[in-house]
C-alpha cells in the first residue's frame, strides 16, 4: 500500500533523537520513535514523563530543542508557519479533553478545518460533518448543540469526528479514554480501531490505560526518563522482559519506577 505517493515500508512519521527541555527539566532526552502507515503505535508511561510533549513536538506546537521530526522522510522540525499549516492537513488529533471550541456548535467544530482552512462552502462542510458524526455514532440531533451540552463521551466522539473529517494520514490520540466510564471508554477504543483501519492512517496514541493500549495498539512503546526504554508488538507486552514495563503494566508501586505522589 502506498500513501501520498510514498512507499508503505518507510515510516510515515518519525522522531529521531528528539530532545526537549522544559521548566529546567530535560523532559525528552533523545526520543527515537516511528510509525508506518496503517499501523497503530501506543506510547505508555507514567504521568509527567513527556508523552504529550512527544506528540506536540511532532505537531510543532512545542518546538524540539534537538533532533528531527520527519514526515514521509522529510525533515519538518523547523518548518515555517505557512509550511506548518499545510503540513497539518496530514494530521488529525483527538485531545485529552476533546478541546472543542466553546463558541461553536458541534457540527461547526467538526467542520472547522473544512470551512476555515479548506474554504469549503458551509452547506457542503455541514453535510460532511453530519456524515462523520454518523461514523462516530454521534446522533445528528446533537449537531446544533454546543460542546458544553454534551457528556464527556459525546465530546470525545465529536473530537474524534473533528480529527478524522478531512481523512488525515496521521492520527494522534492523547489519553483518549481518560475520564470516561469503562463502557464508554471501550466504545471509544472500538471507534479508534475502526477509524484507523478505515483511513489506513498511521496512529500514535498516548495513554496510561492498559486496557485501551491492548485494544488499539499494533505496537506499544514505553517512555521513561525522556527515552523510549522498550518497544514491541502489543501481544508481547505481558512478557516484555523489562522490569519497568512489567511494573507499569501491573500497576505496582514497588519497582524501578518511583511513584510520583
Amino acid at each position: 500500500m502506498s500513501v501520498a505517493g510514498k512507499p508503505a515500508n518507510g515510516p510515515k512519521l518519525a522522531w529521531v533523537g528528539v530532545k526537549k527541555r522544559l521548566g529546567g527539566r530535560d523532559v525528552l532526552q533523545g526520543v527515537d520513535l516511528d510509525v508506518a502507515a496503517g499501523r497503530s503505535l501506543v506510547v505508555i508511561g507514567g504521568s509527567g514523563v513527556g508523552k504529550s510533549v512527544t506528540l506536540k513536538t511532532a505537531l510543532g506546537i512545542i518546538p524540539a530543542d534537538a533532533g528531527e521530526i520527519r514526515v514521509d522522510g522529510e525533515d519538518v522540525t523547523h518548518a515555517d508557519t505557512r509550511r506548518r499549516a499545510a503540513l497539518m492537513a496530514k494530521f488529525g488529533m483527538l485531545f485529552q479533553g476533546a478541546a472543542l471550541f466553546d463558541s461553536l456548535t458541534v457540527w461547526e467544530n467538526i467542520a472547522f478545518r473544512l470551512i476555515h482552512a479548506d474554504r469549503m462552502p458551509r452547506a457542503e462542510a455541514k453535510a460532511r460533518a453530519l456524515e462523520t458524526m454518523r461514523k462516530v455514532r454521534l446522533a445528528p440531533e446533537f449537531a446544533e448543540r454546543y460542546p458544553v451540552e454534551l457528556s464527556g463521551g459525546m465530546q470525545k466522539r465529536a473530537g474524534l469526528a473533528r480529527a478524522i473529517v478531512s481523512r488525515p494520514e496521521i492520527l494522534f490520540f492523547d489519553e483518549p479514554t481518560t475520564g470516561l466510564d469503562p463502557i464508554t471508554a471501550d466504545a471509544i477504543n472500538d471507534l479508534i480501531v475502526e477509524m484507523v483501519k478505515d483511513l489506513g492512517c498511521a496512529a500514535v496514541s498516548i495513554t496510561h490505560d492498559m486496557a485501551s493500549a491492548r485494544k488499539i495498539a499494533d505496537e506499544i512503546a514505553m517512555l521513561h526518563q525522556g527515552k523510549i526504554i522498550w518497544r514491541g508488538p502489543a501481544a508481547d507486552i505481558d512478557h516484555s522482559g523489562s522490569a519497568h514495563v512489567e511494573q507499569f503494566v501491573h500497576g505496582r508501586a514497588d519497582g524501578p519506577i518511583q511513584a510520583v505522589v
Partner: protein
Amino acid sequence: MNLFARIGYPTIGMLREVGAASLFAARAARACFDAPMYPGQIARQVMRIGWLSLPVVGLTAVFIGAALALNIYTGGARFNAEQFVPNIVVLGITRELGPVLAGLMLAGRVSAGLAAEIGTMRVTEQIDALTTLSTDPFKFLIAPRLIAAVATFPLLVLVADIIGVMGGYLVGVGSLGFNGAVYLRNTLNFLEAGDVMLGLTKAAAFGFVIAVMGCYFGFRSKGGALGVGRAATNAVVVSTVLILAANYVITSMWPS
C-alpha cells in the same frame, strides 16, 4: 542573596517580559494584514468589543461630564469665570477625559474579558487544536480582536464625547442656570477639530494596548483557573498603566 541579585533578577525578568510582549504585539499587528482574513470573526468581535461596550462608556461619560461642569462652575466662580463652563467641559472631555476614562473602563471590561477567554482556550488546549486544524491562532483569534478594538474604540470615544458634553449641558442648563442655546453655541464655537482628533487618536492607541495586553496575557496563561485569573488581573493592571503612559506621550507629542 546580594543586592545586585535582588535588583538584577527582577530587572532581567521585567525586560524579558517587555521583549516578549513587544514581539507578540508585532506579530499580532502583522497578522492583521496577512491573508487569510476572517471577516466573520472580525464582525463578531466588533459586536462584542464595540457594541456591547456602549452602555458602560455612555454611563461613564454622562456622569463625568456632569461632575466636570459642577467642578468648573465652582472653580470658575472664584474668578468670576462661570461662563467658561461649556468651553472647558468640551475641551476636557474631548482631549482628555473622554478617551482616558473610556479607555480605563474598557481596560476592565475588554482586556480582562479577552485574557479570560483566550486564557481558558489556552489551558483547555483549544489554541493547540486550532494549530492542528491548519489555522494560525494569531490570524484567527488575535487579529480579529485587535482590528475590532482599534476600529471601534474611536467610535466609542466619539459617542463618549457627545454624551459627556450632554452631561455637562444637562447640569449647566438644569442646575447652574445656563441658557441651553448659549451653552451649545459656546461649546461648538470653542471646539476645534484638532481636539476631537487628539481624543480619537488616543482611543485607537488605547484600543491597540487593551487588545494586545488582553490577548498576550491570555495566550501565555497556564495552570488552570488560577492562571487564567492571574492573566485577567495582569491584563487589566498593565493595560491601565500603559493607557495612562500612552496618554501622556500622545498629549505631549500632539501639536498644540
